[in-house]
């Protein structure tokens, strides 16, 4: 068995040393966000500020990163979440992760604080800490142009330098946007990481692995979701779908439907602005949008960005969204948190509670606003602290649209109540993906599992959360998991009685899902249809990964991040949503258009094997073989 080797870098002392991962940890946590959370528990004391020099930021990979398996450029950045005080785990599709592996390390654990701006370079197994004073101040595009073209890069922009709470990292044009990981880099004076090397990434059974990849890629290219819809429309295609189900946040989540949403839809983007589609390196799905901006081809916006710089701020100008998306990227800002914070500030303004010169529907000053946020200029420094902080200063907690402090994504959970539960329980805060992404099964996909019905939602949320966590930990893109919805449903379409019936009947499947979750270890099979990732992981590591044990890995990932949150003082009380979503029906005539967290959470905790206060029970940790660890 080839065990991963990380490097531990202390910027205060300038010392670096190898940090081999033990066999026990490798078998249990594999890599990625799971292992990173475990190491954060081990290596950092409780209660640190995210910006404390002793705080660690971990940039690491999973076993599938860079192996050539589809959509496996995705690497992970974990630390303490600037917005929530709990776990930060941010995922990115840039080339840095696979380059890091080729340079000889599976992960970097960075602690301490450099006196002046630095670049950490990893080349052929050697680590150097280089002066980066001349790079400081540059945007994410410029700084990467300055660095050698062939290297894998991970950089911050001006927002990270000034420790904006939702500053992200850029690797190429891909962002590790969420949780403020860019601010943590800034706090340590890290401007950039670079990596290059030619080490071959080891795979346990290369021949079988190659064969399986061929099959898997063919499967992805044939499936409607990964072979047609995502390449044609990207995630942007969801704007019209969410809007059709009243699940598109509008005017800071006051409503879920905007009659003009089509102006910023994926279809409109594809028909009028798209130059072509592209993708992260290694990915056959190719969901990335390419668009022209000032005569240059740049990355186009994702669904979240279109929704949040569109209907959620009362705007309907697609060209403005393209521009703001680019501006956020080069400044190094997370588009979701930035745009959602702006929407909150607009509502504060509307209600006369604060004045940032921001008004619903007015996009004329937004580019300037983003620049001022990134520069923490004057009063805009308040916006740079995110919605939760703002609501504590100016009021409006009931409509500050975050959970635990992290702004929610662009799904209105009152029309997708499972997604609401997901937002509330997601470890990193209001994240749809970490939250299990039930919106796909309830309101924006081909299937609609009764979006207002709470039955079976807790069980499905647990199942989905575990599956998505495992995929991330392995080093794969979550979009490769979209083939989980059977092709036959796309052939039939959302209007067919079979699809409709399944959507209705699924709310009765709670006990079945619960049973599946309980007997997982015996699911010793792998199938392309369900989770091809398990088979790929088995062939890559030589460890016995089957559907059951793969889901266990996901559950372990979810629980270890939960343990980190609990240690840092978050509790079950924090599994919450703003009152707008739990108390005020989206449609006053339909009383069930609220998220009944009070009903959902107890079932969720039970299904997870957690006690009433939301703490994993001893026997749950024992089942997951996590019981003998401190933390």
């Amino acid at each position, binding site marked *: 068995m080839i065990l991963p080797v990380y490097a531990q870098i202390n910027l205060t002392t300038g010392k670096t040393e190898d940090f081999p991962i033990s066999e026990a940890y490798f078998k249990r946590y594999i890599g990625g966000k799971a292992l990173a959370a475990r190491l954060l528990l081990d290596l950092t004391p409780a209660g640190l500020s995210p910006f404390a020099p002793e705080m660690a930021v971990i940039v690491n990979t999973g076993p599938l990163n860079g192996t050539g398996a589809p959509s496996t450029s995705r690497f992970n950045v974990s630390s303490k979440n600037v917005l929530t005080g709990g776990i930060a785990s941010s995922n990115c599709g840039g080339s840095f992760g696979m380059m890091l592996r080729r340079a000889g390390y599976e992960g970097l654990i960075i602690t301490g604080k450099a006196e002046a701006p630095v670049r950490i370079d990893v080349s052929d197994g050697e680590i150097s800490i280089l002066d980066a004073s001349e790079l400081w101040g540059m945007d994410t595009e410029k700084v990467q142009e300055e660095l050698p073209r062939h290297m894998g890069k991970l950089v911050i922009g001006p927002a990270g330098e000034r420790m904006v709470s939702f500053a992200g990292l850029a690797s190429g044009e891909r962002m590790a946007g969420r949780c403020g990981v860019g601010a943590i880099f800034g706090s340590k004076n890290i401007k950039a990481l670079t990596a290059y090397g030619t080490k071959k990434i080891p795979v346990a059974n290369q021949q079988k692995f190659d064969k399986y990849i061929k099959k898997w890629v063919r499967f992805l290219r044939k499936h409607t979701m990964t072979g047609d819809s995502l390449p044609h429309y990207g995630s942007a*295609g969801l704007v019209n*779908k969410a809007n059709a189900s009243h699940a598109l946040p509008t005017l800071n989540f006051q409503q879920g439907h905007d009659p003009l949403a*089509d102006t910023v839809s994926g279809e409109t983007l594809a028909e009028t602005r798209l130059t072509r589609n592209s993708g992260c390196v290694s990915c056959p799905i190719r*969901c990335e949008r390419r668009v022209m901006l000032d005569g240059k081809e740049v990355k186009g916006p994702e669904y979240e960005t279109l929704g949040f710089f569109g209907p959620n701020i009362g705007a309907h100008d697609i060209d403005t969204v393209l521009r703001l998306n680019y501006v956020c990227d080069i400044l190094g800002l997370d588009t979701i948190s930035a745009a959602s914070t702006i929407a909150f500030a607009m509502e504060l303004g509307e209600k006369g509670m604060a004045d940032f010169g921001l008004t619903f529907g007015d996009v004329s000053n937004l580019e300037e606003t983003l620049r001022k946020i990134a520069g923490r200029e004057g009063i805009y420094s308040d916006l740079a602290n995110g919605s939760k902080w703002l609501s504590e200063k100016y009021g409006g907690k009931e409509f500050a649209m975050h959970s635990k402090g992290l702004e929610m994504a662009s799904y209105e959970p009152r029309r997708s109540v499972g997604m609401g539960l997901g937002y509330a329980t997601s470890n990193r805060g209001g994240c749809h993906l970490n939250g299990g992404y039930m919106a796909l099964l309830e309101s924006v996909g081909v299937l609609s599992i009764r979006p207002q019905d709470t039955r079976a939602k807790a069980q499905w949320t647990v199942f989905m959360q575990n599956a998505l966590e495992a995929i991330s930990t392995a080093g794969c893109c979550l979009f490769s998991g979209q083939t989980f919805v059977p092709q036959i449903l796309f052939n039939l379409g959302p*209007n067919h009685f079979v699809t409709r019936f399944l959507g209705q009947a699924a709310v009765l499947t709670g006990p079945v899902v619960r049973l599946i979750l309980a007997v997982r270890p015996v699911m010793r099979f792998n199938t392309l249809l369900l989770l091809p990732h398990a088979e790929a992981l088995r062939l890559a590591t030589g460890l016995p990964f089957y559907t059951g044990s793969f889901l266990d890995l996901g559950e372990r990932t979810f629980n270890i991040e939960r343990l980190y949150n609990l240690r840092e003082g978050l509790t079950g009380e924090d599994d919450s949503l703003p009152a707008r979503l739990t108390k005020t029906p989206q449609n006053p005539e339909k009383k069930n258009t609220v998220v009944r967290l009070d009903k959902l959470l107890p079932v969720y905790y039970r299904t997870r094997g957690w006690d009433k206060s939301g703490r994993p029970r001893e026997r749950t940790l024992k089942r997951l073989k996590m019981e003998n660890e401190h933390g």
Partner: protein
Amino acid sequence: MAEVNIRYRGTLAGLINKEEERITAETVREVLAHIKTAYGAAAGKTAKSMLIVVDGESIHLRGGFATRLKEGETLQFLPICGGG
């Protein structure tokens, strides 16, 4: 009878070589019947399997295929999408 705007998106637009038209119809079902007669069974089948929205709202939140159409409303056929 109401005069409504129809917008064909995604593969359907390519299939019938048309992006929009105005027709008179009372329900969604009648629009589907029109597509089948005017553009053939394949187009009809594709249309039926797409996401159908009236003024941006899914017909599932209205009356399904029996959804009644009002003068001037826009009915769209949209591709199914995914992402996150």
